[in-house]
């Protein structure tokens, strides 16, 4: 004889009811706290941030990289970069050489970096600043198993470093190499280590009406920051006048860093 249907149903029902009762205690015990708004007068519904990088103006001084590391307490070692500068050298016989010594942190003007390609027959050479593209369709947000990385209402992709478990799936999913894992140091912005970190477009500055640190120090107007929702912002003006492109558009990530000065082979 099988276990009688009655017994089975009784047992199951007991378990189900008990489970529901016990799990609903959670809402009584906790009491959901109302989420706090960002302090001051900043309303994240009223802005949607955008960025422009001008490959035709960047002089490769690397001051942006230094400013970012100072502002955001990014580890000084070259493996950790929220932003970096790449140098592209195209020779007459169509060969392309790319480098980014220490992420461009020390600039490109000192030897041997400055003379590295002197022997080549160079047709064209330029710098490309790189940073997190704060994609509108971010693959990093999709793959985070615990939802620790998310997109804010004003278009920035942030990492909740108190919940990141350090699985590094987002680092694998980012097509632009914008993410890294914070090493075991104590001097980080939110005091967390062994979690994932990335450029935030200086969220702590832009919510106070300041510019990101890299934009603030750039001497060549190669980086422009502004509000895509505000027609008078410098970013909107550039988007209206110049021809811009995003990196790796075929992947459908919808990056929000717009580049002036398209060149085939810049990924």
């Amino acid at each position, binding site marked *: 004889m099988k276990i009688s249907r009655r017994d089975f149903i009784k047992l199951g029902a007991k378990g189900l009811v008990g489970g529901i009762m016990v799990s609903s205690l959670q809402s009584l015990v906790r009491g959901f706290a109302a989420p706090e*708004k960002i302090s001051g007068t900043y309303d994240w519904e009223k802005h949607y941030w955008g960025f422009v990088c001008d490959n035709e103006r960047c002089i490769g001084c690397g001051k942006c990289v230094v400013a970012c590391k100072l502002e955001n307490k990014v580890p000084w070692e070259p493996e950790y970069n929220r932003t970096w500068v790449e140098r592209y050298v195209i020779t007459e016989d169509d060969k392309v050489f790319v480098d980014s010594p220490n992420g461009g942190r020390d600039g490109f*003007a000192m030897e041997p970096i400055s003379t590295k390609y002197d022997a080549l027959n160079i047709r064209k050479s330029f710098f490309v600043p790189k940073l997190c593209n704060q994609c509108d369709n971010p693959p990093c947000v999709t793959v985070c198993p615990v939802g620790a990385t*998310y997109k804010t209402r004003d278009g920035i992709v942030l990492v909740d470093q108190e*919940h990141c478990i350090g699985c590094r799936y987002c680092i694998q999913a980012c097509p632009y190499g914008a993410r890294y894992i914070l090493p075991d140091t104590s001097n980080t912005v939110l005091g967390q280590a062994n979690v994932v970190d990335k450029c935030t477009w200086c969220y702590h500055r832009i919510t106070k009406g300041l510019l990101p640190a890299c934009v603030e120090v750039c001497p060549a107007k190669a980086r422009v920051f502004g509000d895509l929702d505000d027609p008078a912002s410098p970013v909107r003006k550039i988007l209206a006048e110049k021809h811009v492109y995003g990196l790796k558009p075929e992947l459908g990530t919808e990056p929000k860093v717009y580049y002036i000065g398209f060149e085939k082979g810049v990924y």
Partner: protein
Amino acid sequence: MPHLKRALALLLLVLVFVFVVPRVMPTPASLAAFGFHTRNAEQNAQKWASVPVSFVSTSVCVDCHKSKFTLWQSGNHKVVSCENCHGPAAAHLKTGAPEVLNPSRDLCGTCHARLVSRPADFPQVDMKTMGGDAECITCHDPHEPRAGMPPQLPHTMEGRANCQTCHNPLAHEPFEAPPPQAPHSMEGRSDCLSCHGSSEFRGSSLPHVPAGMEGNCLLCHTAGGVKPLPADHAGRTSSTCVNCHRLN
């Protein structure tokens, strides 16, 4: 069957333990907010927004450094924020301790060393020859780098390899007097070369343009001609003009 009942009971016990108990137990602070993390977005964004700033932005410097600020605003370096060279100012605002800056050739060269990768219209110098070993600030005030410097060129060097073609009409060059004025108005005639061609064009009776002179014709062909070289420029050749007279 008793063993089935027992097994089912054990299974339910395990499920309750795994799925219900952790949700009810007091949780450590690190898992404080329950629910999907994206519901925490506003709180976490608030955390990120509350990080203190280090770079304060240049507009703050004027409060104390008025004369320096005014000088800086008047020169070419007004596009370079104070904090670019002097570093983040937040700590300086708190303690008042001056920022230490080493004004080496390397510091200036970070931006101004001639590199093929830099845009051609950006002011660059060959760091190996310009100024020898002296610090750049020996001649250039870093807050107004063109103070005391010769005037900059008002035009590009395209098609103008030999400066003395226009600027030293008394030397052994084609013009012995200021070039003539254009004998017709420029209405509807923006492209001089479309009629006057270059030196290869022989068929027309119109005066042709000599080789190397395909630049902006109107610069010379106006009333008054062009400025001759000043007396203290004796002996200088065209190749050195651009060393001091940077392009604008």
